[in-house]
């Protein structure tokens, strides 16, 4: 949400009379008084304002920004489901108490404005400037994202292949992890226990010592699940080190490891108890940033490796390596140019360990140049134009482009619009692997997405209405079932929709927020709801060191089908969650017991047919900050 982005940005702006450690000058300059004379009572200090770089790099894009703190306090079980609570045009499926899983029966599919879904290969996740997806299936692992170290998450609706490359067809979810910005250390712990023997423990240590920063976190989740076979667990470990050898220069190294275990419980009428999966993933990246005057340079090489094992003998190892070089140059106050060079290489080894058969796979690779020009010809007016020239080892030359405008019309009233052409190359699975079938002749998917938004923001009110059109051509879709299944490019689809949001902020101790989305998905109805509404009402009261607060969050989904052509309807669903928290704060530490009650009205509902969600359930925990 934009207001959280703004709040986080304001919170991060720290005015410093002088740089730390710098001695005060012997005499201070003073401000002139009305008569033009120096006034000794009001000294003029040199003010240095530091702020984190905005997570959004194109302010003409329709986006939702959510702070990590809000995601950590969310009553929803996973990060992606918490994001879906913040924006009605973002739809995420769930199936239980915290594990989405992989392969058949998995949930966590993401639809944004009609694109995405099963699998999530049309929605790209970028974590700390690194595109993160499974090399064979081309989609992110929904359980890999835990909010504990997250600083901010940005959802770019309509996608942006100019800045982010392949797979950013329908949307991009940009995750930025946090660093400590003051000298010293802080330790965070969150331990919780709840229904279905769910145990959740997260711990993070952030520190800054001289020129060295460290950010490390571990998160463990284990649950029996609300029905047989639905249990599982995730372990996520992250370590990041950053060294600042000189002003403006930063060198960082990150390592993240995920271990995911669980099973597909099967449809409730025909449950499974032995459809297990076991996934290991490792993401390694380095980052170099250099800033001098109006120029910023950045380099980010990365290597993603995954090992997947499934109950039926499937075994895979996938490798995704790549990197990008970027130069961001503010040529003059109203002109900013971003130039980038990116490349990636995806390779995999796949075998059926039961049959002893190894599947031949050819690697995919691409290199690209991209440019984005931002012009501010008048106060409050931004114009953005960009292009990416991509060269694929399989599909040759591809041109992608975008253009957008944002206009601050009058005080809090603003308007924006954007058009973007995006791209997704077929995955290795779609090209080569018989799960259930493959087609080496597949062409890439393209989208041409457009939107127009009008908004009004004041201190207490936030309103916006956005109309959009998602258009995709050469969509890749599976038809039929084994052994007669086929995967082919289909013609084009166009989805029209309207998304609106209204927020009442800081109305005494109360904040209220509602967002709704309606879309015409035509015959493309599979897990693509025609309407969704999310509401949240929160209140908190602080008295001295004590804070008591609560938040109710609800979701209503309408027009949900398991199949295209409006077949296999799923009942409309409504779910209401509640969080209650009490926080005791002393200088240097805080203690926060909390209680999350999910599905407060004990409704029977499901996002995926045959996979009912849990009834009333709860999670109680304790947060500690030192």
């Amino acid at each position: 949400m934009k207001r959280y982005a703004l709040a986080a940005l304001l919170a991060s702006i720290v005015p410093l009379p002088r740089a730390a450690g710098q001695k005060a000058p012997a005499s201070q300059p003073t401000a002139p008084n009305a008569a033009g004379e120096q006034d000794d009572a009001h000294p003029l200090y040199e003010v240095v304002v530091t702020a984190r770089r905005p997570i959004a790099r194109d302010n003409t894009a329709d986006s939702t920004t959510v702070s990590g703190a809000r995601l950590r306090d969310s009553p929803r079980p996973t990060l992606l489901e918490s994001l879906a609570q913040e924006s009605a045009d973002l739809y995420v499926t769930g199936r239980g108490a915290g594990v989405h899983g992989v392969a058949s029966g998995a949930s966590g599919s993401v639809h944004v404005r009609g694109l995405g879904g099963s699998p999530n290969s049309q929605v790209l996740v970028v974590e700390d400037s690194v595109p993160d997806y499974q090399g064979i299936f081309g989609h992110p692992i929904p359980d890999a994202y835990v909010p504990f170290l997250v600083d901010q998450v940005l959802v770019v609706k309509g996608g942006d292949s100019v800045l982010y490359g392949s797979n950013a067809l329908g949307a991009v979810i940009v995750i930025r992890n946090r660093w400590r910005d003051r000298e010293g250390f802080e330790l965070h712990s969150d331990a919780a226990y709840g229904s279905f023997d769910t145990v959740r423990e997260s711990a993070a240590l952030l520190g800054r010592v001289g020129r060295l920063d460290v950010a490390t976190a571990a998160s463990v989740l284990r649950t029996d699940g609300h029905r047989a076979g639905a249990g599982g667990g995730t372990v996520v470990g992250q370590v990041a080190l950053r060294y600042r050898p000189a002003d403006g220069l930063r060198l960082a190294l990150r390592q993240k490891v995920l271990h995911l275990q669980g099973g597909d419980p099967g449809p409730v009428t025909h449950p499974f108890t032995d459809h297990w999966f076991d996934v290991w993933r490792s993401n390694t990246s380095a980052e170099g940033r250099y800033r001098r005057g109006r120029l910023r340079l950045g380099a980010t090489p990365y290597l993603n490796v995954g090992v997947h094992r499934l109950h039926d003998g499937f075994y895979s190892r996938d490798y995704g390596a790549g990197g990008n070089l970027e130069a961001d140059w503010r040529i003059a106050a109203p002109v900013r140019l971003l130039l980038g060079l990116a490349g990636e290489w995806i390779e995999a080894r796949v075998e059926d360990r039961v049959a002893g058969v190894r599947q031949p796979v050819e690697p995919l690779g691409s290199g690209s140049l991209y440019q984005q020009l931002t012009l501010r010809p008048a106060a409050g007016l931004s114009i953005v134009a960009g292009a990416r020239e991509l060269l694929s080892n399989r599909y040759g030359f591809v041109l992608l482009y975008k253009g957008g405008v944002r206009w601050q019309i009058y005080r809090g009233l603003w308007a924006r619009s954007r058009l973007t052409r995006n791209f997704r190359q077929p995955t290795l699975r779609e090209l080569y692997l018989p799960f259930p079938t493959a087609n080496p002749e597949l062409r890439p998917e393209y989208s041409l997405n457009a939107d127009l938004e009008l908004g009004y923001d004041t201190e207490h009110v936030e309103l916006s209405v956005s109309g959009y059109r998602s258009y995709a051509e050469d969509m890749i879709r599976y038809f039929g079932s084994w052994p007669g299944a086929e995967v082919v490019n289909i013609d084009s689809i166009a989805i029209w929709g309207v998304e609106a949001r209204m927020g009442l902020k800081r109305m005494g101790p109360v904040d209220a927020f509602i967002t709704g989305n309606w879309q015409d998905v035509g015959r493309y109805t599979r897990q693509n709801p025609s309407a969704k509404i999310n509401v949240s009402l929160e209140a908190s009261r602080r008295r001295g060191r004590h804070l008591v607060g609560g938040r109710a969050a609800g979701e209503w989904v309408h027009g949900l089908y398991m199949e295209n052509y409006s077949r296999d309807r799923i009942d409309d669903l409504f779910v209401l969650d509640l969080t209650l928290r009490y926080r005791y704060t002393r200088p240097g530490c805080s203690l926060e017991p909390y209680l999350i009650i999910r599905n407060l009205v004990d409704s029977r509902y499901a996002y995926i047919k045959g996979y009912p969600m849990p009834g009333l359930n709860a999670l109680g925990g304790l947060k500690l900050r030192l």
Partner: protein
Amino acid sequence: MTGSPLVAVLAASLALADCEQSYPELVIINNTAESILVRNPSFNGCRWNQVLALGQATTPGRCLPGTDRVHFEKYDVREQLDELEARAGDAGSVDADPGELRPMWFPYQTRTVRRVGCGELYRFELRLDDMEQDFAVPGPYGH
């Protein structure tokens, strides 16, 4: 000062965390026929990986509240023997492949849809006059 809210929140969370213990309990009993074996019965999210002869029952299992039919696999020993006897005819013996002598398990379900609610133990009997073929079995596994 911090003690009471902490204890209250933790006590409430422990009480609510235990709510799945009130999920319905269920026992399935094979009351079909002497020649019929029932395998892997399931009901609304609960599945027993076992084979039941006539009169045998599953262990109590917890399932989700709601409605469903009992789904199971059926093997009729008598039916398979009758088929082999018919093929043997007057010769009195049959030259069958080993594959033909394997048990033939077919998916079945009860005709009656049953509802279960929280906090109760249910005993569902499988009877010959209340079963039909189950065509809703999931297809081959995908990735």
